[in-house]
């Protein structure tokens, strides 16, 4: 909402205040002033008359002018405007003048002295949308009677106005009316407000009828006004409209817009003689085509509010009038409509057909339903004043709304309690009265009647807001709440997650954040921790962001891809994020390692591989207090083109699949434009819900342990884990088996690997003898040979 400061000044005593001060006060009390713009700016201007206009001797388009500047005498000015001519009255920016874009200096243009500049309105900073092409192409042509030598040029032009741009929040739709802005400013500064007196005119009986069959229209009023004459608006009217960002058209249209600006009530005007019958009925059940005054045809749907006459649509309510009954320069008799439409249907219609207007905006925000008769009177007065209106009929009314003023009971303790203040009763009463509320005080109990235009106020909490927004939040003291002591802090689940994140960060992984929305295709790939049906948006912005991701794999690989394409050759990172599907809500941990591991200078870089991510997985489980007996790995059996079928493991806890990790499939690497990458995706919700057994202290052994290293030839079909279990099972003295070398190639037969393992033997009762150790090792070797076909390497 744009406010003309000149208009405001006329109706509120703003003596001693600057537009900036007014703007700041409005902003602090809830109506943010987003911008303050001067319609035009320029000092050291004067109205001049071109006495001579000769072509420049050294140019085919410049003129050399002699300009009479009144008391400043006659100056020579070189001017390039095509419309410069002898006798023209012009705006001259004298030497030293500061315009929005330039400062005028005495100069020599192609050998000719030039002292000043003849200006266009554009050069004074006037927005081009208010100017004709002709005005924009040359210098401004002032009327023949413009006073030469006048220095208040902006005042003379009506361009000395300042526009306050109000950015209104939904709770103050009343401020879409200039009258209410004036009251607000008056209240804030405790200044006198003078609104225009509205003259009453004698009214004729009316045979016009109005009505509504639609729930969306509970109030409809109309007045027939005869004998209007269409002509240009007077300057004061076009100036107020210009300041508010509305282009002046003619007196009738301008009056409609001005009344709306003034009162917040959108008006509609019909050519009375073009209506099929003398009645207007609002309906919401019309279908078919509607030909609007912009020449376009719009389809009507059930639910659209339509003002009809004789069964035909005359106006798409609040949005646009029909072509057949629009007011034009030949119109004599008009019907003025002031109605109340609910915001919802207007918004639906306006959104559907893509048309919005100052009117539809006001209906959507909510208008004051209690002033239709007043609005009709204002309109009549203006039509009488500016459009030579003749006979005026009485207002015909359809009204099903309640118009009682809202009354709120509250008391001082409530207000001060909510604010934490200790305002005396007199201050509170005076403040509410300033704010146009009627207040009756009985001791500290208040009965408050809300002004009809404040449709946002309907409870006692609202009144506390009124008090403090007017008095200022600087009056609120700062007091910490008293709270009962209790055990708070993160839950064990939250702590576990936070520590897990820190664990990964200290392992050197970066923590990333990615978007939740992705495409359907991106979501079906990698969907191995199958939670259920995807959430698909009904109103996506693009197909690339259409569904809520069911996994993190794609997002993280995209991060790898993004970085790899920006010279970040390797990376190790993770994300913890919620995952939502219709089947379940969970939280996942995803890790991607790509490119080469960091290597010391002189050592060759090695790509991250399966065992790097496995190492991280092992450390995660250990840090959570879950030893390797609490989960197991199984070979990949899910197929697909995403994971390497022979370098991927699934992590199970009992029957529950917790997640998977492994090397990316070559086809997936290609898709993400990566050379190498490993991936983990883990259902954190499942992982962190596994019960952890309490710690039971171990006693370090009393007697020394013995280690024996064995190099075994093991068939490739046998896993290390199977060998390890077999060796451990062979003799109770064997307490630990660890692999320390793996070799294939020369000297190792086809179908075998050479695996070196270290056995730890220990008795808790004595120091072991050589013979006891040898016997246990022999049992282990026999078991490995018999059960697994492994033998000592010679």
């Amino acid at each position, binding site marked *: 909402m744009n406010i003309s400061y000149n208009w405001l000044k006329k109706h509120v005593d703003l003596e001693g205040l600057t537009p900036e001060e007014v703007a700041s006060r409005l902003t602090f009390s809830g109506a943010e002033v987003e911008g303050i713009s001067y319609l035009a700016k320029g000092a050291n201007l004067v109205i001049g008359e071109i006495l001579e206009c000769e072509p420049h001797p050294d140019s085919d388009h410049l003129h050399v002018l002699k300009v009479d500047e009144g008391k400043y005498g006659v100056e020579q000015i070189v001017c390039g405007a095509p419309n410069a001519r002898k006798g023209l009255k012009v705006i001259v920016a004298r030497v030293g003048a500061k315009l929005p874009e330039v400062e005028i200096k005495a100069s020599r243009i192609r050998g000719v002295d030039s002292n000043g500049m003849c200006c266009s309105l554009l050069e004074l900073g006037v927005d081009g949308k208010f100017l004709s092409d002709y005005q924009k192409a040359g210098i401004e042509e002032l009327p023949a009677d413009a006073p030469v030598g006048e220095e208040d040029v902006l005042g003379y032009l009506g361009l000395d106005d300042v526009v306050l741009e109000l950015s209104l929040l939904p709770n103050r739709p009343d401020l879409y009316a200039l009258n209410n802005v004036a009251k607000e400013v008056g209240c804030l500064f405790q200044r006198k407000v003078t609104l225009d007196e509205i003259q009453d005119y004698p009214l004729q009986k009316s045979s016009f009828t109005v009505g509504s069959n639609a729930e969306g229209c509970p109030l409809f009023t109309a007045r027939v006004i005869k004998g209007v004459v269409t002509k240009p608006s007077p300057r004061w009217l076009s100036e107020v409209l210009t300041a508010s960002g509305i282009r002046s058209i003619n007196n009738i249209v301008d009056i409609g817009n001005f009344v709306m600006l003034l009162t917040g009530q959108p008006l509609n005007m019909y050519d009375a003689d073009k209506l099929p019958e003398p009645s207007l009925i609002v309906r919401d059940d019309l279908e078919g085509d509607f030909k609007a005054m912009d020449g376009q045809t719009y389809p009507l749907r059930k639910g659209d509010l339509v003002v009809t006459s004789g069964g035909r649509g005359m106006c798409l309510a609040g949005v646009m009038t029909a072509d057949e009954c629009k007011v034009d320069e030949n119109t004599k008799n008009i019907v003025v409509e002031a109605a109340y439409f609910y915001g919802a249907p207007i918004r639906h219609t306006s959104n559907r057909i893509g048309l919005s207007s100052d009117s539809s905006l006001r209906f959507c925000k909510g208008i004051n339903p209690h002033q239709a008769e007043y609005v009709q009177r204002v309109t009549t007065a203006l039509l009488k004043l500016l459009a030579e209106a003749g006979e005026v009929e009485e207002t015909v009314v359809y009204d099903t709304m309640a118009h009682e003023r809202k009354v709120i009971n509250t008391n001082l303790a409530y207000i001060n309690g909510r604010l934490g203040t200790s305002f005396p009763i007199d201050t509170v009463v005076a403040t509410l009265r300033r704010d146009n509320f009627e207040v009756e005080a009985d001791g500290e109990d208040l009965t408050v009647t809300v002004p009809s235009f404040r449709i946002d106020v309907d409870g006692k909490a609202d009144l*506390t807001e009124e008090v403090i927004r007017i008095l200022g939040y600087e009056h609120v003291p700062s007091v910490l709440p008293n709270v009962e002591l209790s055990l*708070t802090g993160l839950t064990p689940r939250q702590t576990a997650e936070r520590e897990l994140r820190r664990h990964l960060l200290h392992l050197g992984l*970066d923590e990333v954040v990615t978007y939740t929305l992705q495409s359907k295709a991106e979501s079906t790939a990698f969907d191995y921790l199958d939670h259920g049906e995807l959430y698909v948006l009904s109103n996506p912005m693009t197909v690339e962001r259409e569904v809520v991701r069911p996994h993190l794999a794609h997002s993280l690989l995209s991060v790898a891809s993004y970085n790899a394409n920006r010279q970040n050759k390797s990376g190790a990172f993770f994300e913890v994020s919620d995952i939502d599907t219709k089947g379940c809500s969970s939280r996942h941990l995803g890790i991607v390692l790509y490119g080469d591991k960091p290597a010391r200078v002189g050592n060759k870089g090695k790509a991250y591989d399966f065992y790097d991510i496995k190492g991280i997985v092992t450390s995660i489980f250990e840090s959570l207090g879950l030893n390797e007996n609490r989960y197991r790995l199984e070979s990949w059996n899910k197929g697909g083109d995403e994971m390497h079928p022979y370098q991927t493991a699934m992590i199970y806890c009992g029957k529950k699949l917790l997640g998977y990790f492994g090397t990316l499939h070559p086809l997936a690497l290609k898709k993400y434009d990566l050379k190498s990458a490993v991936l983990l995706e883990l259902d954190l919700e499942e992982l962190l819900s596994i019960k952890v057994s309490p710690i039971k202290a171990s006693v370090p052994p009393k007697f020394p342990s013995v280690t024996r290293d064995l190099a075994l030839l093991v068939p490739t079909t046998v896993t290390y884990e199977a060998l390890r279990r077999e060796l451990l099972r062979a003799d109770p003295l064997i307490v630990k088996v660890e692999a320390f070398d793996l070799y294939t190639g020369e000297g190792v037969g086809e179908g075998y690997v050479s695996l070196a393992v270290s056995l730890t033997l220990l008795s808790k009762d004595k120091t072991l003898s050589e013979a006891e150790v040898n016997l246990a090792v022999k049992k282990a070797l026999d078991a490995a040979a018999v059960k697994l076909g492994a033998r000592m390497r010679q």
Partner: protein
Amino acid sequence: MKNLIERAHVARAAALDALSKVIDEKALEDFYVSFLAKKGSIPGLMALMKEAEDKAAFGAAVNKARTEVVAAYESKKAALAEKALNLRLAREKIDITLPGEPTPLGHVNPYRLIIDEVTDIFLEMGYEVCEGRDVETDKFNFELLNVPKDHPSRDMQDTFYFGDDYLLRTQTSAAQAHKMSEMEEKKPIRMIAPGKAYRRDDDDMTHSHQFAQIEGLVVDKDISIAHLKATLELFAKKMFGQKREIRLRSSYFPFTEPSVEVDVSCFNCGGKGCPMCKGTGWIEILGAGMVNPRVLEACGYDPEVYSGFAFGVGVERVAMLRYGIDDIRRFYQNDFRFLKDYPVK
């Protein structure tokens, strides 16, 4: 006799002379063999004892000679060892400017850094953390928060919908509604809810269809704006520095009444005015207010008994201001060259 003592002196002198010519450990070993070993010239003097008349005097002379030579030998040995050690150390010189063994330290997306920091501040104040979900119902995101269908403030937030009832939450305030309505006994609440929120915005430097907020809620008897002000002052000082002040401006949110915007004195210029605060000395950091009695009521709290305050902090905005981040999309690109500035603590 004199002659014998003389011979001891000569042997001593010869040994010391030979020792003075020793320059390395090999020569020192040879010296030891020639002069101090069993068959060396100094112990060899003892063989002359039987010829001595004054055995005591001769013995003393030999002992003196041996003690002196041994002492000189030991000191020479120590000097040579030190020299050898120094030589070895010099050979072991390395370039200390070469990089160390890669021991990577993870980096945190500044978005998470801010969430963790704000969370810690409120944990210290005794708040609990309730997170809520991204996919919400219309009821919790709007209805319970005093935004009924067709309420004008739904215009403020263009929402991603899944059918009619499910949506991506447009604000973490939805977590408020959950917490309040799910409290079995309607007891006091102090909670924050960090999380993601979504609006149908085109992504550009300052807009993102996905962003993070931290919602805060306190419900108790007799809670007032004064409590909100003190709490947010404490927060601003912890977050932006002890000298910071805050100011409240009247605003509007459907779920609070009164509603305020909270500005913090500019942490760049200290309030004098600079490009960061657009010359005003103040920076808008969050929205807050007293919980609207209708919200309390809808969530099962009696507004005649309980009151509360709520606030919402924009995570990316705080991070952008704090670190001077130019573009909100950086948070979601995760370029390592951007993340490198935020190592884990």
